């Protein structure tokens, strides 16, 4: 399950439309300077060669180079606030700040949409707002794995 929980690159159209447009040329993976986009390996004729991002391994930093280069507009060239890759869910039972153990602001400090997608409630407790585009940086940096990014692919 965890392996299939990958994100599409920023700006990806809804899953079915994305797959119908993706040429599997791999240009998005080639221009990604953070090396987070991987091409799907294997011989599955429906998925092989399509781009995916696993935030636990390497998250997207919303540089938007991939959506700019995509020749078939499977990745739409949108501003990063509209990347709609997914959305992050914070489990307050695991978060050290919410549990009152230590003050950790890893997710807040690293969020590419800092103070928009993640805000600090009462100046202390991280809260993910509906502005979150699901880049997965917070999931990647969270020391307690309290954050899980749910891909938009699964939402119909």
């Amino acid at each position, binding site marked *: 399950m965890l392996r299939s929980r990958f994100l599409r690159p920023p700006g990806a159209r809804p899953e079915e439309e994305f797959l119908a447009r993706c040429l599997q040329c791999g*240009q998005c993976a*080639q221009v990604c300077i953070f090396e987070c986009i991987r091409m799907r390996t294997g011989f599955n*004729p429906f998925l092989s060669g399509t781009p995916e991002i696993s935030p636990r391994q390497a998250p997207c930093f919303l540089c938007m180079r991939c959506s700019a280069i995509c*020749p078939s507009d499977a990745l739409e060239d949108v501003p990063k606030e509209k990347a709609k890759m997914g959305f992050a869910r914070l489990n307050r039972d695991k978060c050290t700040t919410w549990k009152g153990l230590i003050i950790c602001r890893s997710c807040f400090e690293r969020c590419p949409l800092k103070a928009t997608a993640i805000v600090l409630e009462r100046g202390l407790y991280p809260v993910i707002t509906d502005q979150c585009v699901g880049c997965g940086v917070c999931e990647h940096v969270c020391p307690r794995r309290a954050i899980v990014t749910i891909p938009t692919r699964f939402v119909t």
Partner: protein
Amino acid sequence: MRRPGIKFWRRLVQFGVATAFVVIPLLNHLHINVLTGNFLAFRAGPLPLADPLAVLQITLKNFYLSADLLVGAAIALGLAAAMGTVFCSWICPFGLLSELAQDAARRRTSGQDRVAPQRRTGFAVKLTLFGLGLAGFLVFSTTPVLNQLSLPAWYSRIFQFYFEQRHISLAVVLLLALPAVEFGFRRRLWCRCICPQSVLLICVKLLNPAQLKVRFDAHKCICAKPRDPCRQACSLSLDPKTLAEAVDVACNNCGDCVAACKRRGRALRFGFGPHARDSGDAGV
């Protein structure tokens, strides 16, 4: 020293392209992104290139065509309209592997047993596969499945996988096994009968009677009939003397027959334009 012939230049281009698609993912890994993509869609600086079949598939499915894809596919189809399927003989890395296998097989038997040509069936099989794949994608599937049959794309993908994510794709086995099979059968099976990517290029070339083709001047031919050097040279087992009569489905304008004829009377030559004088001569 003899001047290098057409086959030398062709092999140089083929090996150059094959090497380029090893080097490009490596450069991309070093964040040098002047050249990106593979044989399905490619970008050289501002210039887009695209596989016409991949573009056709997503255009028909989505009723959508971006400027990049339009330009990319138009360049590929324009080349085919003017010069024939030179992509297959001068650029395609699988074409190179297949030809090398064919050459090796021929050297082993020193050119003795000629395989009888099967001219039209190959294209019919190819066309059927093309139609089924396209219809299947439009009606049932969500992804352009014919792209997975593109062996040049798999060739470039192997190196994309390796240099970008240190993954050794099993496609290596596929790309070595198929030339091995062709070494046994000696028919360039994939190129003749399966490759759906070539169908659009062939269709475009058939539309243009004035495209580049091999012409035959019977007056100049000095070879004995049964074992013509030009026929021996053709990796697709065609008869080069008949290629000028109409645009041939299978001929890729590789020029091996022209090179073979070069020192024996130069009866075979490349030429453009609708066929006029030469065919009259060939009939004599």
